[in-house]
């Protein structure tokens, strides 16, 4: 599903990723770990086309998205749900509108919106906050809106960048359970996280990055 071959990403003279090769199979769930600044978010950015690799190949379901013309990016992105590290919500829109956005851009019907949006807000524990403007929510609430938006259209791939950083322990466990449930339904999931406790409790394969280099780990059982 996701294949990286010798990917290098440099910003000026700073190398965020140095020769990273790695595969994630369809239906797999994988953690992306490593210290602050290791290149986790950069790797995810390559996968949803926000950045292009300096060299190397990035294949999503067979297509090399680093070669894709800009006009085709939206089609890829519709199949890739992303929980951004900084949420990237529209602060002036309501919670419901933020979540609905991911459905609207794929041309979902009114009917689908009415069914899916409350359902997914229920899952992340934000039922009743539909009409609150996203900009005034607490940090953890915003993070959950971001999660809801990423999963609302059942994407083939889910990329979550530090999705529990602003959540308390029990809420973080809930989110991981949500991600696992989605994974079990066939979605390929890639989660960048620092939370060792969480990774121990929900074991999956890990890709560890250190200063832009991959250090693969097997899940400890």
């Amino acid at each position, binding site marked *: 599903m996701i294949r990286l071959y010798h990917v290098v990403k440099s910003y000026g003279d700073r190398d965020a990723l140095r020769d990273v090769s790695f595969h994630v199979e369809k239906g797999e769930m994988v953690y992306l770990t490593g210290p602050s600044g290791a290149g986790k978010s950069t790797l995810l950015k390559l996968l949803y086309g*926000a950045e*292009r690799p300096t060299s190397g190949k990035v294949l999503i379901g067979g297509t090399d998205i680093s070669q894709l013309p800009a006009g085709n990016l939206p089609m890829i992105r519709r199949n890739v749900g992303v929980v951004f590290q900084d949420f990237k919500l*529209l602060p*002036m829109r309501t919670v419901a509108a933020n979540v609905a*956005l*991911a459905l*609207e851009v794929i041309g979902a019907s009114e009917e689908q919106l009415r069914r899916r949006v409350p359902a997914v807000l229920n899952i992340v524990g934000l039922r009743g906050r539909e009409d609150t403007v996203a900009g005034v929510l607490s940090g953890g609430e915003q993070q959950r809106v971001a999660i809801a938006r990423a999963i609302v259209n059942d994407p083939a791939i889910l990329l979550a960048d530090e999705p529990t950083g602003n959540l308390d322990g029990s809420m973080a466990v809930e989110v991981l359970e949500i991600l696992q449930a989605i994974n079990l339904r066939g979605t390929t999931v890639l989660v960048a996280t620092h939370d060792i406790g969480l990774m121990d409790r929900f074991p999956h394969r890990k890709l560890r990055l250190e200063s832009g280099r991959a250090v693969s780990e097997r899940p400890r059982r």
Partner: protein
Amino acid sequence: MMQLFRRTLRGILEHLYLTVVGAGVIAAALLLIGTFVLVVRNLDGLVSTWNHDAHISAYFRPQTPAEVQVAAQQAIAGRREVASVEHVTAEEATVWMKEQMPQMAPVMDDLGKEALPASLEIVLKPEYLTTEQVEAFAKSLSDAGSFSEVDYGRDWVGRLDTFLSVLRIFGGVLGGLTAVGTLFLVANTVHLAVYARRDELAIMRLVGATDGYIVGPFAMEGALQGLLGSSVAIAMLWALHQSLEGRLATMLPAALGTQELAFLPAPSLLLLILVGTLGGTAVNTVAVVRFLRSLP
């Protein structure tokens, strides 16, 4: 379509300030242009009343028979350059002369009623009033042979002509600059409004929106801003026109020869609305598309 409209409305409500500023800027721009056109139209009217003063006097040779004079008048009236021809008999000329120069009256009486020659007073159509055309026309009359003298205020025609050219050039420059300047100002405002919403646009792109999906509501918002802006501009123009007309009421007959200050005719108003609406759409669309190009 319904969905596009709903999304447009949402965008407008979310950024009411930006929308209102955009509409206001379009209104200001169109008001400037409209006022300019209004002034030009009315000055044009004014200048054309002057043109009627630029006439050609063709004096008959002494003792030209009345039938010949009438025949000449009819011939000239038939020419395409001519707006009107008036026949002034020798008697009428004498009366006129006495009125103009009362101190000459006794002299004129001594001379009898045929002292001054009969003449034709010819007014040309405004489109034939350039120096060259008037000169050519006068020359054709002289060459015809029945007139002792053809008089057309050489200076006056030349000066009026030059004045009109200069005025037209000045007007063109000012009008052109107003159009370009306001377009620049409107385009900048719209660009800034898009710039203020840059995060929002970037986010839409990241969740998989196509350019068309993003541009649609902006284009429609631009159209609505343009429609609103041009309507406001026309309302203000009308108010301006009314207040000016009131203030100018006593001067108008003397200056324009009519009681009324001309307003823009319906087609021009429609054009203004069209320019506003299409302009608003175009400027908004260009701004968004240009911004989207800069995004990954």
